[in-house]
């Protein structure tokens, strides 16, 4: 399945082969939106893996991020808010040989979709979840999300966020995900490599991509425009190895990047098939 092409072979316009033929471009996303950057990294990763387009299902929920699959020439399933992982579980389990990639956002996956997120991790079903975290609800106009930092401004936290966020990667690891990584839209080569690892990994993989919503988060929190926010991701990214030596105070406001967790565990569809084989073996 993994056909790793060299840098020379993958051309810069490889993207164009994967865009949906009858869809209008450019995308509806704001100028400079990190969603587009993640989409590029994802396409390059899929191309390097040599996946057949018919074999890929992209599932998303609702939100700016969730508009991603519609633009690509795969089997795309744009579902209800928060429910992408549940639909994806059905699609994967029905035809386990398909590659199922879920594109979701911080609100979609962790608020309304929190329960499905936890259980998809628990089942360790072979789905790759790309969680594009822009710390806000972009599509509906800038409301707070479960990852909005404390004291940050949003339209529903106009005086500063009095809630605490949680960390999707820690949540995923605790719930049973077997590949968890985080990177930012600044570090595109690393993000692309991580996506390749995540898709190849047999089990539930989570890639959290830190992204910029300069239109809402940036404006409300004076974090700047797209360029300024992406520059800040570069400055505030800390590799995991270095982060282990830092104190919690030093880590405040930083993004710990890299592969955070990678283990091998039996996958859901494989276990089910083993059970079916045992059943058949017992009967015959």
């Amino acid at each position: 399945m993994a056909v790793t092409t060299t840098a020379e072979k993958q051309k810069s316009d490889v993207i164009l082969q994967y865009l949906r033929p009858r869809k209008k471009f450019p995308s509806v996303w704001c100028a400079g939106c990190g969603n587009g950057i993640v989409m590029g990294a994802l396409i390059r990763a899929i191309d390097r893996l040599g996946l057949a387009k018919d074999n890929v299902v992209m599932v998303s929920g609702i939100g700016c991020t969730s508009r991603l699959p519609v633009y690509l020439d795969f089997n795309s399933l744009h579902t209800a808010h928060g429910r992408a992982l549940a639909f994806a579980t059905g699609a994967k389990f029905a035809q386990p040989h398909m590659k199922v990639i879920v594109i979701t956002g911080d609100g979609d996956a962790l608020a309304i979709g929190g329960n499905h997120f936890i259980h998809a991790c628990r089942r360790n079903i072979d789905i790759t979840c790309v969680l594009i975290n822009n710390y806000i609800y972009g599509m509906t106009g800038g409301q707070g999300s479960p990852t909005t930092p404390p004291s940050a401004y949003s339209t529903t936290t106009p005086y500063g966020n009095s809630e605490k966020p949680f960390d999707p990667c820690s949540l995923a690891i605790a719930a049973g995900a077997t590949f968890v990584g985080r990177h930012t839209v600044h570090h595109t080569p690393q993000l692309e490599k991580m996506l390749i690892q995540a898709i190849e990994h047999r089990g539930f993989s989570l890639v959290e991509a830190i992204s910029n919503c300069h239109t809402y988060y940036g404006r409300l929190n004076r974090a700047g425009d797209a360029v300024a926010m992406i520059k800040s991701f570069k400055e505030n990214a800390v590799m995991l190895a270095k982060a282990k030596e830092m104190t919690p105070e030093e880590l405040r406001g930083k993004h710990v990047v890299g592969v955070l967790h990678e283990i091998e565990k039996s996958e859901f569809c494989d276990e089910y098939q083993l059970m079916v084989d045992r059943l058949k073996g017992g009967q015959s």
Partner: protein
Amino acid sequence: MSALKQRRLMQGNAACVHGAIYAGLRFYAGYPITPSTEIAEGCARELPKIGGRFIQMEDEIASIAAVVGASISGLKAMTATSGPGFSLMVENIGYAYMTETPCVVINVQRGGPSTGLPTKVSQSDTMQARWGTHGDYTAIAVAPSSVAETITETIRAFNLAERFRTPVTVLLDEVIGHMREMVSLPEPGEYPVVNRVKPTVPPERFVPFEVTENLVSPMPCYNEGYRYNVTGLTHDTMGFATNRSDEIAPKLDKLKYKIERYTDEITKLRVDMMDDAEIAFISYGTVARTALQAISIAREAGVKVGNVQLYTIWPFPDRQIAELCACCRKVIVGELNMGQIVHEVRRVLPHDKQIHTIQRYDGEILTPHQLLQKLDEVL
């Protein structure tokens, strides 16, 4: 037909599983809820034996989502629940309506609202089967009244779902779900099994939501070469979201007329002693069993009464009800709720007919005695 058909004492819920598998069920995702849990358990035991897949999801919302995902992927899929679970599912059932995805939802009805009466019967989700989710759409719902009929109506539900590319609700009263009766299991080939129509054009010319002659678009499975977009947003014939009035209205028209145009073929009634009836009972599900006994007793006493049993509740059989009750002066609608189908009957029949209703909503079924008492009052 072999004379020695397999006969067995079977529970209603188990019969439902049997009918579903006969119709081609190969994917079940569900969540336990009384009084439907036996259906999930039955599928958990039977589906792995035949290469099918069973998964217990984390809640009802995830269950119906997984069912829709599996159906789009290409398997016939079903879930079973009761009132509170159905309420949770309605959003994604609406998604199935909008995306025209075939699937079957069994609602083993119990007392409501809210947690209500987990172990007692009602028919109070009848209207919810029609109007549960938001927006404009046309629903199909069927109601068996015995364990044997649970098998046949479940098969029919799958066939309707595949034929019309729509979710179909089976309104199975708790009493029927849990009771045991002798049934003859259907032989292979005894009942027709309908599968979704697949596209024949090459992928480059495939229009996923094409407006065909019968308004039902051919539906491919995943991994057959057809890559298309499925979305819950109102979409054009290519499956892309649209804001244009000249694409929105045709889509909604398609959802409505693809079913309403064929109401006569979807309608299924059982008509007893209506030829010379002056009074008619209209009933469905459990109440129909009671009504059949009541009218035979009444006829012996010389009362000209008949019964119309609805197997297809939605779309409501306007024309047939109007025709059947044309010669009746009075109509009695019997339901285990505070009056739901009676409103449809009132809508359909002319104003000069007297429409009475007998309702029982204390968790018990209507008895023949109660129906006969009502008949006395009305005469």
